[in-house]
């Protein structure tokens, strides 16, 4: 219990830094934030009005305190372009992004862990070499390049799957799943490469341990032995999955553009072109929050893998 509290408290400084960075973002830019928000067509009078309306004429620390207070009450501000509360805007866009992220994660776990274990078990073989080659390639080929190759092959040439767009869950599970296949495969490739490499490295290390030799000596089959190995390799693998969340969220932005999916990532890009800063700030806060939360959960799950850990 004490550990839980300490670990929870340790997220406070991280999120505080995130909040400061996100808040300072529009103040860091060279030039007047009010003019930046008002855009190129605004007159001097418009800018002055906006400055007062947004409280930009107050001292910086007062603005920050005000902004934090609103955040604490769940108010992310109002979108400058659409005049809609940002929370509402985000809620509309969350379903596609969350669906892609969840399925990508699932796909990664299902592919990367067995693949990495296999590569470690057969270290030095052609399977191992092929897996490592795939990992290097997946890190080098840009996400959107693979995305278009997938679209070109499976949607345009073979016409197996929809080319682009997103079908809501409420409009039918079949169509929803079909619209998710290519984006998830696309996004998962880098993530699979990352987790496979880590799985291979840790399992390889564990396979040299004495208890593995004992397990083999007592006549245990390949799968139970690998089961022992995996359980002991689980913590570094889980950590890598957590760190990879940043990669996943970043990848979603690109994937949504390739597949023309109206998710949170697309919202950010549109907001950059519209100078809609409250939306950009909110997405940064949200994604950092998700990253911190998932890493917190992963930290707390270590005990499941290794009961010897005393918090």
């Amino acid at each position, binding site marked *: 219990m004490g550990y839980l509290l300490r670990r929870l408290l340790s997220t406070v400084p991280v*999120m*505080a830094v995130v909040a400061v960075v996100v808040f300072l973002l529009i103040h860091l830019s060279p030039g007047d934030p009010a003019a930046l928000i008002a855009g190129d067509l605004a007159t001097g009078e418009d800018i002055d009005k906006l400055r007062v309306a947004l409280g930009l004429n107050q001292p910086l620390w007062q603005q920050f305190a005000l902004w934090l207070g609103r955040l604490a009450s769940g108010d992310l501000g109002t979108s400058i372009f659409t005049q809609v509360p940002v929370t509402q805007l985000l809620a509309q866009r969350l379903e596609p992004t969350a669906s892609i992220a969840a399925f990508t994660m699932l796909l990664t776990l299902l592919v990367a862990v067995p693949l990495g274990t296999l590569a470690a078990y057969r270290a030095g073989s052609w399977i191992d070499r092929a897996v490592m080659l795939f990992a290097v390639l997946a890190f080098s080929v840009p996400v959107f390049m693979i995305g278009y190759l997938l679209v070109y092959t499976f949607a345009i040439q073979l016409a197996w799957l929809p080319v682009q767009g997103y079908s809501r869950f409420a409009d039918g599970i079949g169509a929803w799943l079909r619209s998710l296949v290519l984006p998830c495969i696309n996004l998962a490739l880098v993530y699979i490469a990352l987790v496979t490499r880590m799985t291979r*490295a840790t399992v390889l290390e564990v396979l040299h341990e004495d208890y593995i030799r004992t397990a083999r000596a007592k006549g245990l089959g390949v799968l139970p032995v690998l089961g022992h190995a995996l359980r002991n390799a689980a913590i570094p693998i889980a950590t890598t999955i957590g760190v990879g969340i*940043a990669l996943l969220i970043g990848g979603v932005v690109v994937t949504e553009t390739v597949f023309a999916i109206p998710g949170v990532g697309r919202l950010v890009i549109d907001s950059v072109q519209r100078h809609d800063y409250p939306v950009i700030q909110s997405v940064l806060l949200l*994604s950092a929050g998700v990253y911190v939360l998932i890493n917190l959960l992963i930290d707390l799950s270590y005990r499941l893998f290794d009961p010897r850990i005393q918090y």
Partner: protein
Amino acid sequence: MSTALSTTVPEAPDTPFVLPRWHWARKHATLILGALLLLAVAALSIAAPWVATADPQDIDPLARMQAPSAAHYFGTDALGRDVFSRAVWGGRVSMIVGLWVGVLATLLGVLLGLLAGFVRWADSAVMRVMDGLMAIPGILLAIALMAVTRASLTTVVVAIAVPEIPRVVRLVRSLSLTLREQLYVEAAHAVGTRLPTILLCHVLPNMVAPLIVQATFVAAAAVLTEAALSFLGVGIPAQTPSWGNMMAEGRNFVAVAFHIILYPGLLLASTVLAINLLGDGLRDALDPRLARQL
């Protein structure tokens, strides 16, 4: 006695031990492959004015979206511009961004990392800020930084470098913690060497190998991020030919003219692959112990 000893020393054999031919090349195959591939791309982009077969901005409405041919090696894009010439010029952007982000992120990372590793009161402050920066996905932070500045090559370099800094800081700090305990550092401190001198003469030289390796990986990530930013329309100004911009322009013509996206994409992938191979090769060549850390 000494003469007796010297007579027992065996004479040098007539044929000294020689490593098998190409031993070095075979041992460092990844390094050589990566370096050669990167040199080829770099040479191509430096020689852009002479290699390009056409003006990269030259619009020809009559020759729109032509397939690759002898006249246009990579075909033409939606405005009839020569894709090969644009791709060759576009390589310059990637090379510049990779190089500068690698240098900038490493320099700032070393400064902050040494501060955290050797100045006790600064340690937790610096590291908390780095933890916060790492919680924001790199590409999102870069997008947000691009949103508040005017798009140019310089702002793109800075926007990509900032999210890369924490990784370097962490590496430098962890190396510092080990080096700080080394006897020669303690000895230098004991004879009254000032901290800046210790850092410059005793600590930094021992960090060069891992830093070079890390810088290559940062450069590879930077080239990818620049292309992604330009592809999303928030990177290099659209009129500048860059691989990301070219792929963004070809986006709407995937079904009819896939070559507009394919060739810049292949060049981009080969460049990043080259830098990654170079990094892997350098890591194995410079410091085998590092292979497990990075």
